[in-house]
Structure formats: structure tokens, C-alpha cells
């Protein structure tokens, strides 16, 4: 099950991101325990778990916003420097009102040099880079629109351009599909898969539902109660592995190319609590999988 064999699938190149036994304690509570996984170049990895499982904490550790209590984050085989700009980050939501004067191209340009001091001088090279990146995410149409007035999917694409314009090797996306309608969801997923392959980028996407990502993910990191299991979908999303991860019985059901993860009784011991859980969470998981 949970192994670090992604190096094998990516040939000889070492993983771009490697988490090595990360543990996090916050105010006396253990949030993450011995988290190990890696993301190789050109690889798209789904970080899957329910709310509160520890996905965001993993992101904060990788971004350097939170120091782990134990373990190391390696980027390109080296310990993560304190100020690292080789990681692109797309948050779940951005805080901009519709009438704020910031165009898509301004936001993308901030991805290039937003950390610098002073007011930027007009530069042809800068503009070309921004235009190129807006084109790459298919956002040229609303390049001059206010970011706040765009739809969720459009904002997501502009933020992806913002994260990519500085040419990072690693891209992190925090629940990029959470607020999207079905069609935008599909568009964003396809865009990410294309960019990962074209640019040889390591992409880590967090999501509470694996199904929209199924066609494109190379591997899955499943998070529950601060523990992770990583590997290919077939290796990880199985009744045995997830039962061990969750600490109670879950059933993995494959249905028309989708995967339902359902708490409930199986072959093993089925105490009344598990039955109760199964009864309660069945409809919920069905809805989440649609």
C-alpha cells in the first residue's frame, strides 16, 4: 500500500516534492503523524480526505507557513528554504469584491514580481509573459476584466496562471473544485492535467471527492485522522487500505467508473456502531460521488 515508489514511475528523476515523516502538533493535539509521500515531475497527485482530515495542514507545511514538529519537507531533494518561490499556490478562494480595480492580467503579473518592492515599470517582456500565461490557461478572453467579477472557474484559471507565471516546479491547489459547477470543474481538471504533462510540473491537488480527478490523477494520497496512505488509485482506494487508515470498516464500491467510499459492515467484525455509521453515511457518500 503506502509506499514511496513514485520514483520508479517517473524514471530516474527524484521527486520534486517529498514529505519525509512529517508530524504536526498544534495546541496539544496531534494533527499529522508520520506523513510520507512524494510528487514527481509531470505527475498529478490527488490529496483526498474529508474536511478536517489534515489536507490544509499538509499544504501549510509544504508552503512553509507552518513548521512541522518532526520530519522534513524536501523540494528537489533539498530541505525547503525559508522563502521559497519555486512553489506555486492556488488558494480555495480569493478575497476580492467584484468592483475592486484589479484585472486578471494584474493578478497574473503579481505572480511574477508581487514580492518585489516599488511600483513596476511598464515592460514588454513582463507583458508578454503575462499574455502567454493567460493564453495557456485559456483566460485571454477575460484578461482585462476585474478579477472579482469573474465566475469561480474563471478566477480559478487566473489564479493558476498567477501561480505558474514564475515557472515553479511544484503547483499546489487547495480544493480547486470546491465551488465550481460541473462544467467548470471538468475544464479546470483537464487544464491541470494538460499543464502538468506539458511543463513537467509536479501538481498536488486537494479535494474531498476523488471522482472528478479520477481520469487525470497519477497517484492518490488519502488523508484521514492525520495519517496518509499513498500510491496508485488501485493500490490505495481499496477496502483493506482505507479500513486500516480510518480505523473502522469502510467499503470501497466501484460503480460505472466511479468510486464510492462507504462506512459500514463488511466481512470482518461489524459492531452496532459500524452499522449505524454505514446507515447514516451511505446517502451522503452517494451524493458526494455524483
Amino acid at each position, binding site marked *: 500500500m503506502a509506499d514511496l515508489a513514485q520514483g520508479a514511475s517517473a524514471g530516474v528523476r527524484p521527486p520534486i516534492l517529498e514529505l519525509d515523516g512529517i508530524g504536526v502538533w498544534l495546541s496539544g493535539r496531534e494533527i499529522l503523524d508520520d506523513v510520507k509521500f512524494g510528487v514527481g515531475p509531470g505527475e498529478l497527485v490527488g490529496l483526498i480526505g474529508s474536511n478536517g482530515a489534515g489536507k490544509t495542514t499538509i499544504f*501549510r507545511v509544504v*508552503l*512553509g*507557513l507552518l513548521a512541522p514538529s518532526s520530519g522534513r519537507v524536501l523540494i528537489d531533494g533539498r530541505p525547503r528554504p525559508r*522563502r*521559497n*518561490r519555486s*512553489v506555486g*499556490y492556488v*488558494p480555495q*478562494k*480569493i*478575497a*476580492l*469584491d*467584484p*468592483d*475592486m*480595480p*484589479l*484585472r486578471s492580467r*494584474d*493578478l497574473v503579473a*503579481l*505572480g511574477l*514580481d*508581487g*514580492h*518585489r*518592492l*516599488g*511600483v*513596476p515599470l511598464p515592460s514588454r517582456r513582463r507583458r508578454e509573459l503575462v499574455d502567454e500565461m493567460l493564453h495557456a490557461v485559456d483566460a485571454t*478572453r*477575460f484578461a*482585462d*476584466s*476585474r478579477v472579482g*467579477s*469573474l*465566475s*469561480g472557474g*474563471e478566477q480559478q484559471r487566473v489564479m493558476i496562471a*498567477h501561480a505558474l507565471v*514564475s515557472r515553479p516546479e511544484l503547483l499546489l491547489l487547495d480544493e480547486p473544485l470546491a465551488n465550481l*459547477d460541473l*462544467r*467548470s470543474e471538468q475544464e479546470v481538471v483537464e487544464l491541470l492535467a494538460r499543464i502538468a504533462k506539458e511543463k513537467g510540473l509536479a501538481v498536488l491537488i486537494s479535494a474531498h471527492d476523488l471522482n472528478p480527478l479520477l481520469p487525470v490523477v497519477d497517484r492518490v494520497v488519502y488523508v484521514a485522522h492525520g495519517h496518509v496512505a499513498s500510491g496508485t488509485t488501485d493500490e490505495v482506494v481499496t477496502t483493506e487500505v482505507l479500513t486500516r487508515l480510518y480505523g473502522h470498516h469502510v467499503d470501497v464500491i466501484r460503480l460505472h467508473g466511479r468510486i464510492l467510499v462507504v462506512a459500514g459492515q463488511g466481512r470482518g467484525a461489524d459492531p452496532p456502531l459500524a452499522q449505524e455509521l454505514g446507515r447514516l453515511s451511505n446517502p451522503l457518500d452517494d451524493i458526494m460521488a455524483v
Partner: protein
Amino acid sequence: MGGFWSHVVEPGFFQSQTVQVALLVGGVVAAVSGVVGVLTVLRGQSFAGHALGDISATGGSGAFLLSINPLFGFLGMGLAAAGCMEAIGVRRVRGRDVATGIVLGAALGVAALFLYFDTTFHSTSGAAITVLFGSLFVVSTSTVPAIVACAAGAFAVVLLLYRPLLLSSIGEDVAAARGVPVRVIGALFILTMAITVALSAITIGAILSTALLIGPAATALRMTRRPVTAMVAAVAIGVAATWVGCLLAYDSFYWPPVQHGWPVSFCIVAVIFVSYLVVDSARWHRLRRANVPAGSQDPAAAAARPLHESSTHDAEVLGSPRTD
């Protein structure tokens, strides 16, 4: 210069030294307020800006009590309050609002006490009016260098931190992920806001200082999609409003009811407010015109609509599926 102009600009306007100081101070302060104001609105800190204005009234009234220059009272209290607000609650937006509210309440209570002492012990009944509502025509010449220096300092900080400030207005995590020291930047900005508000308090009074900080900025945001253009527009609107306000106040010596002049602060704020109404209604009309073709079946007209202001985008925000 015919008879009409001599009525608009009453004789002696430009020769009066009081007016010269007022135009200089008002112009400088309005310019820096415009630049800082746009970033304040972008960063969603309008409430903090308003609170800093009210809080600096405590410093201004204290300065009257101690017979020192009110500018230093406004400045000292504003900076201290900004430091407190930053120290109490920076982690979350909501925490910041609560922290601001607590500091604001306490400071206004002290201001009430100081103003009471001012009027009872010093018999300076004008203190309350001057601190709270200001008067550009009583700014002393000796204060001018300090005002210009403060304004230049605030201006320099904002220009230097322009990009990191914009970036962290998108989201603090985004900025931190790009290597921006978000806390330091945020603290420097709120201190800059405190300086700007103190200058504004000298110009149009502590209570009205928000009008100069937020008013021109809010008007400018309605006019443009670019942050730099918005700043330039806010500066232009602020400076123009201040100067026109001075002119109106000067002219108002010949106005009813008492032929004693209207408060200059009122005149400035009135001009700011009217310019906001004019710009906003112009935008509203433009939007309404632009949205008419949306109902028709003419795809060329629909495509010609400016995307950033089209109603389809508003609809998408509400989650309706796209049809194009």
C-alpha cells in the same frame, strides 16, 4: 477674468496667506490620502481607517489640554492605536474588526473626558469643534514642514510596498507563499494609515478624516479597472475637492445666513460626496445602457459588451450555469 469669475473667486483669495497655507496643506494631505485610501479599500480596511480617525481625536483633544501642536497629538495617538490594533488581532479579519472596535470604544471614552477638561478648565470652547471637525484655515504656518514631511514619508512607504500590499489583498496565504513577510507589511501599512489619518484629521477634523481617506478612493474605484489609475484618479479627485472646498468656504463669507463663512470641512466633504454621486450615477447609466443589448438576440452586440461589467458575470457568481 470677467465679472463672473470675480464672483467665483472672490477678491483676495490667492493673496491671503491663510488660503495659501490651506491650499498647500489640503493638497498635500488629499494627495497622500488618495493613494493610501485606494489600498485601504482594496485591503478591506475601511473600518480600521475610520476607527483610527476617531481614535486620533483622543490625541488631538489631549494635545489641546497640554497646549502642544494638535498634529503631534493626532499622530501619537493614531500610531499607538494602530500598534494596539495590530498587536491584539492580526490573525483573522474578524479578530481584527473586534480588536479595532475595542480600541475604538476605549479611545473615544477618553476623548470625551479630554474634551470636557478642554472646555471646563481651559475655557477653549472651540477645542471640540476644531478637534472633531477641524478647520483648514487655522493650520499654523509652523506646522507645514511637519505635515509635508509626514505626507512624504507615508507616500514613500506605500510606493515601496505597493506590490506586496496588492498581493496580500488577494489573500495572506497567497502572499506568504510568494515569500512576502505578510505581518511586517500589514503592520507597516496600518502605521502608514495612522499617519495619513492624522494628517487628514488636521485638515478636515478627526471625525471627518475618513471622508478624505475613503471618499475619493471609493469614487476612483468606480471609474477604472487598474489599481495605479485608481490611485491617480483618487489623488486628482481629493485634491480638486479640497481646493474647491476651500474656495467655496472662502466665498461663503458672503453667503446667508450669517455672512460669517461656512465651515471649510463641510464644503470639502460636500464636494467629495457630490463627486461620488455624479460618478456613480454616470456608471449606473452606462451599465444600464450596456445591458440593454443583452436582452436582444444580437450576438455581436452581446460580444461587444465590456466583459468585466456584463451581467452574465454577476449571474455566474451566483452560481447559474453558463449558456455560451
